């Protein structure tokens, strides 16, 4: 694995669109070629080197390339967009679309991320060591195929619209989440270790939500079924199982209607 280190030296007046910060774009390039990759501020195109110090050369393939990004990235969008392999470590807060449409590899953000991280994600892993904004692991606007695979972990809290239209993969939030979780989801698994507010599983078809803490308001379309013992993310516990959304359409398998499942931990 070869490592390329980027250090931001100029803050953009507006926002920097840096969809070329991926192992895929860097692979096979030397530092002096990487500085020439395009970035955008509004309608103007610049070179990556106009905004970042670049040191180190990339590996021959994306899988052999690691990118470390230093400095304040809170005005930088699209870090790791569409990456297929390799690794990115961002040592700062980052703006929107971290790991959007990601297919493989790993992104670690040692800070908070703004909205739309992991949009339409297909594979790979995103680890956010701070808080995540709204629309984490959600579908892009108008797309009914949201997150399909991969794993997102958040050490802090997550915003609203978590996992909208989720089809597969896993999201684990150690802290609390805001409203609208797994809306329209047809698969996948969301684990919330803190508290949730309202509107969990609205219009949900299939998939699983686990909540370790409280839920302010349960959707009327979720009905209590039974208490069950569950082993989730390495934690064993007794959970109340709800099924829903009863108002939504559902598939049948072997004559049985398949509902989405919501597990809430019963106080130990």
């Amino acid at each position, binding site marked *: 694995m070869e490592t390329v280190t980027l250090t931001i030296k100029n803050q953009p007046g507006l926002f920097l669109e840096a969809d070329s910060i991926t192992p895929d774009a860097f692979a096979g390039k030397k530092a002096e070629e990487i500085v020439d990759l395009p970035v955008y501020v509004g309608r103007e195109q610049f070179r990556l080197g106009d905004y970042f110090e670049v040191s180190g050369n990339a590996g021959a393939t994306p899988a052999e390339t690691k990118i470390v990004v230093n400095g304040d990235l809170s005005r930088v969008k699209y870090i790791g967009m569409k990456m297929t392999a390799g690794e990115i470590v961002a040592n700062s807060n980052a703006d929107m679309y971290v790991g959007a449409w990601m297919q493989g590899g790993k992104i670690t953000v040692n800070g908070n991320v703004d909205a739309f991280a992991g949009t339409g994600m297909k594979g790979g892993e995103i680890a956010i060591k701070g808080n995540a904004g709204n629309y984490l692991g959600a579908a892009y606007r108008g797309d009914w195929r949201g997150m399909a695979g991969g794993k997102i972990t958040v050490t802090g809290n997550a915003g609203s619209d978590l996992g909208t239209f989720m089809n597969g993969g896993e999201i684990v939030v150690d802290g609390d989440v805001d409203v609208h979780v797994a809306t329209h989801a047809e698969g996948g698994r969301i684990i919330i270790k803190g508290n949730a507010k309202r509107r969990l599983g609205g219009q949900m078809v299939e998939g699983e939500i686990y909540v370790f803490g409280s839920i302010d308001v349960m*959707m009327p379309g979720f009905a209590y079924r039974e208490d069950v013992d569950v082993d989730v993310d390495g934690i064993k516990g007794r959970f109340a199982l709800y099924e829903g959304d009863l108002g939504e359409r559902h598939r049948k398998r072997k004559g049985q209607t398949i509902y989405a499942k919501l597990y809430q931990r019963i106080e130990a």
Partner: protein
Amino acid sequence: MTKTVTDVICPFCGTLCDDLEVVVSDDGKQLLEVYNACAIGAEKFLHSQAKDRITRPRMRQEDGTWKEITYDEAVEYTANMLADAKKPLMYGWSSTNCEAQAVGAEIGEAVGAVMDNTATVCHGTSLIAVQDIGIPSCTLGEVKNRADRVLFWGCNPAHAHPRHMSRYSIFPRGFFTGKGHTGRKVIVVDPRPTDTASLADIHLQIEQGHDYELFDALRVAFKGEKLPDVVAGIPKEKIYEVAETLKSGRFAIIFFGMGVTQSIGKNHNIDAAIAVTRDLNEYTKAAIMPMRGHYNVTGSGQVWGWQFGFPFAVDLSRGFARYNPGETTSNDLLRRDEVDAVFVLGSDPGAHFPFNSVKKIYDLPSVVIDPHETPTSEVCKVHVPVAFVGVEIGGCAYRMDNVPIETRKVVDAPEGMMTDEEFLTRVLARVKELKGV
């Protein structure tokens, strides 16, 4: 002597009434009286006749006062501001005709602007929901002639669309609705006892901000599944009753307004409302329609829809159209300092945006095109007054049900005043010169 012009279109609200009569002076220069319009519609026509109307562009001076400038100077300032900016915001577009909207879109493309209209603080959330799950809708003519179940959710037409109820939704006698009001069951969902609610057969006084839960409960009730005892402050018996009332109609229509589009959940509320409508079609015929506010906000969505593929919040900065409300919407752009110039036409963000956004407009290079003096003109660097569309110049507008209606000119604009379209055409030509395209 005076003349009476008939079949005039009202350019105020999305109802776009087409039966007004306007009395004008013989020389066609003065508008004297307006018949058939509601109070707010008539006011719009009479406002054009104000004696103290501003008829020439103005530029803000260092000391905060206005200095009159020529239209040529205003074109020059506007074109340069847009051409110099890295990412200008071009906002408004709801109170003008489709012809002007189309020219504006050409400018936006040439300068790499973000194009946004008033849907951004109004029914943009409905447009997101429509893109997510589609919409079974209809025209207002169908409502008048067929609807026997009328549901108003989070809207108050008695005040916002005053003639909507008499022309289309509650009172008119249509082909299959010969009994008028008595043949229709009216349901209102609103946390407040509004004037519209006072006309309802059933008023569900919902707990504020629980619309999404109540929509979901209706869907559960349609399927005959079990409900919790109380949802959104409404007892389950009442919810089953409303579900039955809707299912038993021959044609149900749901009208909804900003009470649901801008309260918590936003697009999700509309998404769920559309799902309710779709479910109802298993039992009867049902349709749903947003109560659009400005008379041609629907048109700007149509024009951009066919030009860019998206109805609002279109980011053209990278040379292709991107659309992501939450990022490319005006208030998010202003709040986050993502734009470096602001152009406003046919809307009043100074009155409708949060204070922080208005402050940003004040800090940036900014131009407003508006016949009126408004809170927006108060914070902009240049104000360009123009002729009133639908009064002093015609042009196409789209009613809330997406029916295009050609508005009419009834009087002349004051001597030497430009229209929106003329001004924009001049700006476009100058922008092309500056950009060398």
